[in-house]
């Protein structure tokens, strides 16, 4: 994998984070509930943070596999369907949406890594998949806090 090819991959990953950042910001602007508004603003900031991390990696030249642990995964995201975005969505759906998006991103990079013959490029995709897995784990933990209430 040459440097240009590497940069292109990371740039696409950065674009993904920017897209997610704007997506959450847009939801935060139209959602009714104040708490959820704040939550989606937080998601947007989190994606901006991911963007910064990837930008820094791009500037350093090469991504290190150890940057992202990707060690933990509950696979909770895999147990739900993608929630629909609505103006009056509930907290569970809101966090579920973010969790599912991280799962989709993780699987995208995992798929790219699986299909890649270039060992260097494969390593980059694997690292990015690990990064998204870390994000997914964080969202799964947040989802666990809200999704299984005892209410009757």
């Amino acid at each position, binding site marked *: 994998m040459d440097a240009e090819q590497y940069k292109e991959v990371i740039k696409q990953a950065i674009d993904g984070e920017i897209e997610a950042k704007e997506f959450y910001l847009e939801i935060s602007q139209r959602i009714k509930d104040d*708490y959820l508004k704040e939550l989606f603003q937080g998601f947007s900031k989190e994606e901006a943070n991911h963007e910064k991390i990837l930008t820094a990696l791009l500037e350093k030249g090469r991504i290190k596999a150890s940057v992202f642990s990707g060690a933990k995964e509950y*696979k909770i995201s895999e147990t739900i369907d993608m929630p629909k975005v609505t103006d009056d969505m509930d*907290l569970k759906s809101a966090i579920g949406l973010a969790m599912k998006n991280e799962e989709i991103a993780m699987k995208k990079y995992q798929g790219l890594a699986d299909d890649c013959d270039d060992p260097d490029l494969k390593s980059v995709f694997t690292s990015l998949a690990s990064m998204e897995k870390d994000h997914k784990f964080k969202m799964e*933990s*947040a989802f666990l*806090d*809200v999704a*299984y*209430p005892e209410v*009757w």
Partner: protein
Amino acid sequence: MAGLAAAFGSGAMTNGVSELEDSDVILIIGSNTATSHPLVATRIFRAREKGAKILVVDPRKNQIADFADLYVRHRPGTDVALLNAVMRVILEKDLADEKFIKTCTEGFDDLKDTLVSADLHALAGICNVSVEDITALAETYAAAKTASIVYCMGITQHTNGVNNVKSLANLSMLTGNIGRPGTGVNPLRGQNNVQGACDMGGLPNVYTGYQPVTLGPANTKFAAAWGVDALPTHVGLTIPEMFSAIEDGSLKALWVMGENPVVSDPDADHVVKALKKADLLIVQDIFLTPTARLADVVLPGVSFAEKDGTFANTERRVTRVRKAVDPVGEARQDWEIIQDVSTRFGYEMTYDSPEAIFNEIAGLTPSYAGITYERLEGVGLQWPCPSLEHPGTPFLHKDGRFTRGKGLFHAVDYRPPAEVVDEDFPFWMTTGRVYAHYHTGTMTRNSANLDFEVAEGFLEINPADADALGIRDGHKIKMSSRRGEIETKIMVTDRVEKGVVFMPFHFEEANVNKLTNPAFDPVAKIPELKVCAVKLEKA
């Protein structure tokens, strides 16, 4: 549970039992822990050995109060007044956790207005607790790094039980004692598998895992799993509502499993009258209980030692129960009885084991989805456990991230019990348990050794009241309320204060629930078993 659900978004015990050992302060209120939950009490004693301060609040000086650093005896049914007074002192002394309140909660201003506008001395007068004790309670609880609240039916079995629980939630959030190990608001369940029964949808309005019957997705999912086109979407009846429905003729048949309402429910004569009116009463139990004696059909079920399956305990921990002995006589596995009846009614059930049923539960219940019999080997798993990779959840609302988002304070004002003392019925009466017996005594009173320990009912009465009535230990007395009367022996003791009497409810021949008040909390529908007004006369 409704109170915790309103405040936090979930009604379950917030923390695990073992975490109590690491609490700096444990506030026990409305819980006779040493008698009714001895294993929980063991954790509390260990915490005490490690230096924790134990605060006990109860109208009756129960066993664990003997080990308390501070015991506070308040008047029955005045919990909200006492807790508001405690919170007012916390505010006055600037002991509230402002950062937690600001970042993790909402509704604080309303609570603050209520507390600030209340008169501390007036609240102290209502609950009959000195301002000094209220202050000591407030300072000790609020100063702790990790403070846990433990409560039981002394809090919930009131017409304002939900407000009592909301007040405890207020107290925990006010001081930031929630969402960390060793903190929280912890309701102790009344029996070993109450949590499990509720988890399994043994409630009028939910399927397993608290999935509402009124919601389309849950109905569709269960209908598909059970191979039917549709399932009912209306909410069923609570127990008090069932008795009323029998009386008005809208409920014709009742199937009671492992429950003895003739002894456990308030206004017992009224319960008997209702049960006798039912066209068909089926009772499934392990002994011929007072309720079973009224039944048209008795189905002999099995005890815990004769069955395989799972229990879910007070801390949401699902554990295995294993058959140790074969069923006695004609007794059959409860699931087999239900399966056979269902099949004969035309809906065929073909489960071949409790594990097969459990696997269906896990498949339909997101909070149980990661639990299997294999994973339950050992100490079990605490739900939510939504996937096979998940290790279970020791405590809820981590770092102040509540199930509902932000924790909600409720401004709650004191309301008196539904029935208060007067000239005709001048004594406050409260009920509870003694160490030798379990609930309505259907099991423990069949044990010769346990029945020998406490063989009959008794009424605890303060020495001053006994003197005034001219009665001594062991004398018989007639006790009556607006609903009935019973005769019982008395025990003179300063465990209860002047004007208050206590009686255990284990004894059908001196059934104190003939006297208790069926008035219930409007939200939780729990009857006010812990307070009523009675009259005492020499028998």
